[in-house]
């Protein structure tokens, strides 16, 4: 039997302040309040502020999440002096360059940019480590501003702004199909383009090449399809095509925020079963969630922190004797009969899988839970999500007689971490710790880490159930 291991993990942020108005919540509210757009614009961050934002440096891998405790809060007022755009396997990309990637991701000439804007960004893209000469060709030379203005005036395209100036537009893909409107095309292209960046990074930064990838699993929450198959999907294969994975096919796993956990487990199973040697899990960013909690941020007169999308790419492959091992004998899942109380959920996702392999909660060095940045959620009254999760796991340890109640607070520090992920649903669900966990295990900082993710299935109105999935990774003891 082949042992599945985590061979690499890449994390990318794209900072897109001028797409915030296309987020679901702001887009709806702007229609009702004519002053809102200007008010939102006054609270957007510059690219430099986004790069220096401490949780962003943790997300791309430049700062251990635990180190955030040393940074004075609020973090948006504590820019990191040594902040870098790039990490060893990811980056924080500025909006203007991301617009170029949107064009690269577009196979149907639905995205068009004005000539001078394209001429301005082309030299920057040319310098980018992931851009190849044929990418630059694909960008083309743009169209005249009047052509873009005309499409917008005809209501068959939506505008893309850069620096307050009209830079381009996204066209509707079918005038009678509400599943292919310009808004939905933009949403899906944002996911695809950010996914392509993350996938190219993971294939450039670790010991697996694009040609070696045999299967790609998408784990995002976008619905790709037309009126006859809304949500038909396979974003995974669309992304892999642009990352040179010529020997791969793929599919998407859907389970709301919980999908990345399912995807990692299924990828590991495909490897352990011997069907494929190298599998890639991919999740692009979510446009709809931009500015979702803007109201809380405006109320506290703080920057709108949901001005960026996250993307993740994870390499799961056959044992290389060094990368952390995924323990498929310790997978937890939330069964239909499990129950919806916190006890029932954590019994299924934490206690049951650990019991199977003779481990206790305190045997796990680090837990990755929903890692939403509390600075984004707290002003809107959504609480500190990771803290609540860690205190719940700690309380399970108390109920199991593993530790005393007085140690609940210190458990969060020792076995958890502050939240640092953008609030992008699937992106925040435990997976942002994968890169750190892999490094920490390989450096000997920790022995193991458990990933616990949950998903709000009820939001789709097909069931009142939620979902959950968990898995354990641990140090590779070497090839025997």
């Amino acid at each position, binding site marked *: 039997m082949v042992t599945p291991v985590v061979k690499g993990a890449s994390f990318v942020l794209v900072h897109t302040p001028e797409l915030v108005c296309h987020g679901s919540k702001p887009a709806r509210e702007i229609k009702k309040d004519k002053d809102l757009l200007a008010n939102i614009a006054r609270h957007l961050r510059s690219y430099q502020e986004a790069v220096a934002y401490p949780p962003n440096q943790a997300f791309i891998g430049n700062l251990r999440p635990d180190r955030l405790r040393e940074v004075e809060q609020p973090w948006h007022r504590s820019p990191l002096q040594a902040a870098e755009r790039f990490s060893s396997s990811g980056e924080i990309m500025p909006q203007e360059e991301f617009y170029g990637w949107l064009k690269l991701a577009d196979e149907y000439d639905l995205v068009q940019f004005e000539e001078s804007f394209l001429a301005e960004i082309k030299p920057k893209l040319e310098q980018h480590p992931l851009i190849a000469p044929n990418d630059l060709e694909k960008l083309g030379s743009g169209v005249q501003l009047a052509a873009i203005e005309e499409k917008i005036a005809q209501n068959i395209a939506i505008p893309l702004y850069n620096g307050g100036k009209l830079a381009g537009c996204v066209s509707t893909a079918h005038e009678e199909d509400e599943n292919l409107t310009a808004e939905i095309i933009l949403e899906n292209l944002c996911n695809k383009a950010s996914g392509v960046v993350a996938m190219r990074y993971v294939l450039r930064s670790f010991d697996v090449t694009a040609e070696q990838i045999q299967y790609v699993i998408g784990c995002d929450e976008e619905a790709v399809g037309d009126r006859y198959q809304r949500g038909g999907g396979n974003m995974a294969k669309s992304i892999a095509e642009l990352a040179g994975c010529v020997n791969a096919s793929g599919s998407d796993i859907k389970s709301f925020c919980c999908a990345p956990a399912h995807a990692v487990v299924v990828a590991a199973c495909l490897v352990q079963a011997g069907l494929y040697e190298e599998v890639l899990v991919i999740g692009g960013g979510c446009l709809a969630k931009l500015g979702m909690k803007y109201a809380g941020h405006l109320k506290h007169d703080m920057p709108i922190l949901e001005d960026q999308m996250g993307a993740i790419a994870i390499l799961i492959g056959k044992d290389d004797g060094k990368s952390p091992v995924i323990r498929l004998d310790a997978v937890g899942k939330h069964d239909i009969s499990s129950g919806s109380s916190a006890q029932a959920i954590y019994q299924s996702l934490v206690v049951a899988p650990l019991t199977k392999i003779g481990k206790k909660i305190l045997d796990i060095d680090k837990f990755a839970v929903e890692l939403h940045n509390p600075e984004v959620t707290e002003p809107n009254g959504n609480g500190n999500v990771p803290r609540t999760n860690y*205190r*719940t796991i*700690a309380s399970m340890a108390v109920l199991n007689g593993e530790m005393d109640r007085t140690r609940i607070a210190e458990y969060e520090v020792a076995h958890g971490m502050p939240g640092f992920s953008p609030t992008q649903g699937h992106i925040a669900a435990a997976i942002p710790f994968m890169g750190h966990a892999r490094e920490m295990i390989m450096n000997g900082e920790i022995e193991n880490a458990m990933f616990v993710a949950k998903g709000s299935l009820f939001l789709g109105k097909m069931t009142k159930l939620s979902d959950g999935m968990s898995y354990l990774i641990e140090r590779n003891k070497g090839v025997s």
Partner: protein
Amino acid sequence: MDLEVQGALLKAVEQYGKENVVVMLGSPDADSADIYAETVTVGDPTYAGPLAGVELKLSVYHILEDEIKALIPEDVYQEQVGLMELSLDKDAICEAMNNARKNFLG
């Protein structure tokens, strides 16, 4: 508070009358309990949802408050809420609820 929940609450009030609706919160900390309590009494402080500017003045409690706990069979409470009672800051949440009722319901 989620806009959909605000909408559902408004509907319940229209259907059953203010005096017949009690709001039971399960929010995880004192700050969010305070915001939720404010929303269902004097209106949505973020002015984003259907309860913006709507003073429902509804009775509001948190599931961790002792007067609520006393109404629920102990075994059911332990099974459904016991873990959260252990893990959340019950004292701070209860204090926030008492203050919120004083401030918003007078």
